């Protein structure tokens, strides 16, 4: 089916961004309202499309819109085309819905910032780019949105770029993303070289004819792209620093939407991964590594936003794991993505609300007992917390446990390993999230008298309440009668014939719950029943120290990439000036030197010139002599 309204989804926020950026300070007064309106109207278009889709039968739901012929050279034909299907509409609603809520939240959160209008321009731009990412009907269109959100992320992380560390964090995010982008562009190149097309439809159609090797290569490259954007191992290092951006940004971009783009990419490319088992296994392995990696970092962080960021990394690890489990896991990956979008965004907004009340303090060791001062924040944050650790019937329970279950049932050693790791992750998640909640809201107050904690204004808590509602109900809603699974089936493939299950859903749930209780218990003992020092203790085990240093991810990057890179740069610079340019200048010097030597023959005495003429004449005559004889 074709539709003419797809383009408005993107055009409206893009228009908002353009107007706000071009109008400059003139739009300071109304910029935030305008930006929010643009985002909201995009949401409205999304809802309209969703309703339209609901009215169609399963196979007819996908809608396309071809705008124009974008690039056309020889057999390389790419249209600027949009595609909304069951998968993209989930994202569209999440992006525009959560996006609009965060716009509203930001009106209050950023009200004291002189550049609020610019902030809204960037947010609008992000919404447009993210929508392009999920709506593009080919890998190349997706790529445009892919880098667009990277740019938006760069701009928003560096929103307060007068602080050098923030500017550095923005740069780091962009560069790490670029490494991933390199993977994506290589994937597109391989796809074109093997399949002759880069559109989703075309690749899907031809994929089965391609060799497994090529498909594995494409899959691995797509995975590289996903690790960059979704902060997965080994390109995860940027996410923690990205918390330099304003908190609404962390909520929208670095929790709910942009960082999940990798999951979208893998799910969208299911037709490739399903034919390339090795690549699919790599996806699952990366997911497991990251979910543990993030969880471990999360235990050690005192900065509330960084703790949440580590949690995000870990949760996306779950999604990637789900996506790496094949058709059985795609739907649950997406479900976890959506529920995570609600509860993590809500928690980030809660963190923002706490910071708002605490003079932008982020160290949880300087919080404590805030539940009395911020009841609404506490309530919404608490609901999100229950959702993330997977307490039934909150959202996380439905989505996360399903992923664990599918992992266990993936078969053989692989299934047991992946499943156990995911279970372990669930326990750690319970521990560190409990730690966050206790440190922030429970216990005794540890802030100094300058802070005057207070509840945030209506415009801030209203979105939090709505998101909390989502974190409570969404899981149930999605999994009731496998509604989301059925909805996505035409895109990601259907149920496989159920093999013998290793563990039944009930067993997994019980196991998970037990582990969660253990994790929560540990946290309560350590942080609620014991005194929490205001300054992080330094006499800790080496493991804690390593965890606090983000498991040495920055040290690794510095030692392996940055320092050698700098050395190469310096070496090449020296080589350029001494060797290459040196050779060039050497030619010049040789000419001058030779000239200096030859110049000594130029005595200025006309008689010596005459002598040389004579010598020349001798040479001439001698030549004639030799030649004629």
């Amino acid at each position, binding site marked *: 089916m074709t539709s003419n309204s797809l383009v408005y989804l993107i055009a409206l926020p893009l228009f908002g961004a353009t107007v706000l950026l071009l109008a400059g300070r003139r739009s300071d007064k109304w910029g935030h309202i305008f930006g929010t309106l643009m985002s909201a109207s995009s949401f409205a278009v999304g809802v309209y499309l969703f309703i339209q889709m609901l009215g169609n039968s399963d196979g007819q739901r996908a809608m396309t819109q071809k705008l124009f012929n974008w690039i056309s050279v020889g057999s390389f034909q790419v249209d600027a085309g949009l595609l909304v299907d069951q998968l993209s509409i989930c994202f569209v609603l999440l992006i525009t819905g959560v996006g609009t809520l965060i716009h509203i939240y930001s009106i209050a959160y950023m009200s004291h910032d002189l550049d609020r209008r610019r902030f809204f321009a960037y947010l609008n731009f992000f919404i447009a780019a993210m929508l392009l990412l999920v709506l593009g009907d080919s890998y190349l269109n997706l790529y445009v949105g892919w880098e667009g959100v990277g740019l938006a992320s760069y701009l928003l992380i560096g929103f307060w770029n007068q602080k050098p560390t923030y500017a550095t964090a923005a740069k780091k995010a962009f560069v790490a993303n670029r490494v991933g982008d390199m993977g994506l562009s290589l994937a597109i190149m391989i796809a074109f070289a093997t399949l002759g097309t880069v559109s989703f439809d075309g690749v899907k159609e031809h994929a089965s004819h391609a060799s497994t090797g090529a498909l594995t290569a494409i899959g691995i490259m797509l995975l590289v792209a996903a690790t960059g954007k979704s902060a997965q191992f080994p390109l995860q290092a940027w996410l923690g620093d990205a918390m330099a951006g304003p908190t609404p940004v962390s909520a929208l971009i670095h929790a709910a939407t942009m960082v999940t783009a990798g999951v979208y990419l893998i799910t969208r490319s299911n037709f490739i991964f399903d034919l390339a088992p090795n690549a699919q296994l790599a996806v699952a392995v990366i997911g497991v590594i990251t979910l543990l990696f993030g969880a471990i970092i999360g235990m050690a962080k005192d900065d509330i936003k960084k703790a949440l960021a580590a949690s995000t990394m870990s949760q996306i690890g779950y999604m990637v794991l789900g996506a790496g489990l094949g058709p059985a896991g795609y739907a649950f990956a997406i479900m976890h993505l959506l529920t995570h979008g609600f509860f993590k965004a809500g928690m980030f907004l809660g963190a923002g609300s706490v910071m708002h009340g605490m003079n932008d303090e982020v160290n949880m060791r300087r919080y404590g007992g805030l539940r009395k001062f911020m009841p609404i924040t506490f309530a919404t944050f608490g609901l999100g917390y229950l959702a993330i650790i997977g307490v039934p019937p909150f959202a996380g329970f439905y989505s996360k446990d399903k992923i664990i279950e599918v992992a266990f049932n993936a078969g053989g050693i692989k299934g047991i390993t992946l499943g156990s790791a995911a279970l372990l992750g669930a326990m750690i998640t319970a521990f560190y999230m409990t730690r966050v909640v206790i440190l922030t809201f429970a216990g005794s107050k540890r802030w100094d008298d300058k802070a005057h904690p207070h509840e945030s204004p209506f415009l801030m808590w209203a979105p939090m309440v709505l998101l909390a509602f989502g974190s409570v109900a969404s899981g149930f809603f999605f999994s009731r009668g496998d509604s989301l699974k059925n909805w996505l089936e035409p895109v990601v493939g259907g149920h496989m014939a159920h093999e013998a299950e290793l563990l039944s859903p009930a067993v997994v749930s019980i196991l998970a719950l037990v582990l969660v209780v253990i994790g929560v218990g540990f946290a309560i003992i350590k942080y609620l029943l014991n005194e929490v020092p205001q300054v992080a203790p330094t006499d800790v085990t080496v493991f804690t120290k390593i965890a606090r240093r983000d498991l040495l991810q920055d040290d690794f990057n510095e030692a392996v990439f940055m320092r050698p890179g700098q050395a190469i740069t310096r070496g090449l610079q020296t080589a350029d000036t001494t060797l290459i340019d040196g050779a060039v200048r050497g030619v010049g010097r040789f000419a001058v030197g030779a000239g200096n030597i030859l110049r000594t023959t130029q*005595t200025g*005495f006309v*008689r*010596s010139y005459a*002598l040389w003429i*004579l*010598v020349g*004449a*001798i040479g001439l*005559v*001698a030549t*004639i*002599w030799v030649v*004629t*004889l």
Partner: protein
Amino acid sequence: MMHQVIEIGRTQTPEAVLYWILGPLAVLAALGMVVVKKAVHSAILLAWVMISLAIFYIAQDAVFLGIVQVVVYTGAVMMLFLFILMLVGVESSESLTETIRGLRPIAIVAALGFGGLLISLIGHATLGRSFVGLTDANAGGNVQALAGLLFSKYVWAFEVVSALLITAALGAMVLAHNHRIIARPTQRDLATARFRGTSLAKAAGLPGPGVYALHNAVDVPALLPDGTPAQASISATLKARGDVIDSRPFQLSTIESEEE
């Protein structure tokens, strides 16, 4: 013809005699020209070489060229040389010690090599073994035949050379032209200078040589009113040669006078 050559490639004996007398003389003169110190002597030796060549020309049936050689070269060009030598200074003789290090040995070696090469080349060449002679070419007279060539085949070169001559003449004039650096002094200026000078001694003009002197000759200085010889009255050239004859002061009888 009765004076037909006896053997192919041989001319008549008198020419050989001429050649063997004049040839070595010319070479010797040329060598001398290079060796002698004084430029004037060089010029005279060169003139001798040129005259020898003129005779050679005539001997080789180039009558016109022989005459021209004498008239233009030995006559005009050599006169020009001598004239310039006079202008620049006859007596200027250069020391024959070489100032540029290493030039002379290289030059002599090079010249010997060059000459040797040339001569061996000529020796190897087969020139003249069967020479044609100019008897036919000069049948209507040497001058007429040359003129025929000059005004037909070589007329363009001839015209160009004439233009060159004019240009050279003009160029010589331009080069020799003396640019005035200061305005030409008028008579008035000269008079002023004479009387405003450092002394009035020359105000009345210099005496000619020999005035009031013992002899009325150019090599005797004039006597000033006080009886002393005026050295300034004699040409500097004579003085430099040491050809001044008598410069004794004239002993005047003492006359009491306070006048100055």
